[in-house]
């Protein structure tokens, strides 16, 4: 009935690609979140002369197709003769891209903390940093987490674009198999399924977490 020349070996090859996708996602989200938190904090609290240029750069990162950013960064790296792999370039570009979005999320979360709550903290004798770490961040986290999970999922999907700078991730490995086996629909469907399986549970988890927190406050 249904025949395929796809072997277990090939499925493994696909899973390897999926592994690469996850690895890049991990680094990009990690780096992007750390940077995003710094930028976001600056965006929420810094004076305009620091805030405006940061906002401008982040805005550019959000307004240029990721594909173009990858290609540009990759060629710029070689112009500078930096000795880093395409993998690193991919991670760095994605991390910056993630940071650009993360910063807005963090900023929104921080600004969502009512100033009166912060004032209450300060009036108890807490320092500015204590207020930030004990009051502002935990509250902002609840506001920001759903969007942050959405961002993570978005980044995972955007990793597909690193195939342009020669990294064999999930989509690229499926293309390689399509080249060899000539069963595009079948193989692409499997790739799609893997993407779905990777992101759907996280999406659900995020929705659950959000609901639970909502019940709490």
């Amino acid at each position, binding site marked *: 009935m249904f025949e395929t020349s796809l072997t277990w070996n090939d499925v493994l090859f696909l899973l390897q690609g999926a592994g690469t996708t996850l690895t890049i996602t991990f680094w990009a989200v990690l780096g992007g979140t750390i940077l995003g938190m710094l930028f976001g904090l600056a965006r929420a609290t810094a004076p305009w002369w620091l805030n405006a240029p940061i906002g401008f750069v982040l805005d550019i990162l959000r307004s240029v197709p990721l594909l173009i950013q990858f290609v540009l960064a990759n060629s710029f790296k070689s112009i500078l003769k930096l000795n880093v792999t395409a993998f690193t370039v991919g991670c760095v570009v994605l991390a910056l891209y993630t940071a650009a979005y993360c910063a807005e999320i963090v900023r929104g979360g921080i600004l969502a903390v009512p100033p009166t709550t912060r004032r209450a903290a300060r009036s108890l004798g807490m320092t500015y940093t204590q207020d930030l770490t004990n009051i502002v961040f935990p509250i902002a986290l609840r506001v920001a987490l759903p969007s942050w999970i959405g961002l993570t999922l978005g980044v995972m999907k955007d990793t597909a674009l690193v195939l342009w700078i020669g990294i064999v991730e999930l989509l690229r490995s499926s*293309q*390689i198999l399509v080249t060899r086996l000539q069963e595009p629909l079948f193989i692409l469907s499997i790739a799609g399924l893997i993407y779905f399986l990777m992101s759907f549970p996280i999406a659900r988890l995020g929705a659950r977490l959000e609901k639970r927190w909502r019940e709490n406050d």
Partner: protein
Amino acid sequence: DKLDDIIASGVLRCAVVLDFPPMGSRDEKNQPVGFDVDTCNDLAKALGVKAEIVETPFPDRIPALVSDRADVGVASTSDTLERAKTVGFSIPYFAFKMVILTREETGINTYENLKGKKTGSTSGTFEAIALEKDVKAWGGGSFRPYQTQADVFLALSQGQIDATVVTNTVAHAVVKSGKYKGFVVKGDAPYVTDYVSLIGLRQEQGLLNYLNLFVNQQVRTGRYKELFEKWVGGEAPDLTVKGVYY
């Protein structure tokens, strides 16, 4: 310089296109094989270093080189003057004839028949540039550049395009593989022979010199014929151009 760097690092990184059989492809274990892969291995052996294959889609060959992801390109790169402004070419290490690949029922028999038809080819290749120019000159019909050779075949088999112009080696290999039903080779495209070269960074004269000598040695020692027999079969094309020094 680069040549020293390669020898010092002990690794030669070759940019190779792996969806371009028989020059480069993957076997059942998804490992790279092909004429270009063997050539790279030979070059590494000559240098006394290990070979590392960096897979690059066609449009990415020279960017890969310029961006220092690869040391040399063993990737069937046509030696156009436009590109020579950016990268350095060795003497030709292979030569292609262009043929028309189409499906049986399209009724295309000659290059002239391509007028008004849906055509396509691999973005950035010699034949793509030539074909697109002709399609534009004809007016009517269409030309689609794809990012990989595989996508071109996929498009041809699905009917997204009616014909493509490809190198004779690829055309015969794909017809012989039997993976695409109804693919037929119909006649030559009237282009000049497509000489392809190894590529390196434009300013790395030392490396380019070495590559020139390496190609020369491959032919001289018969290794060129041997590899041609292994991957393509038949008469190996002449790599010299009559009436002019390289």
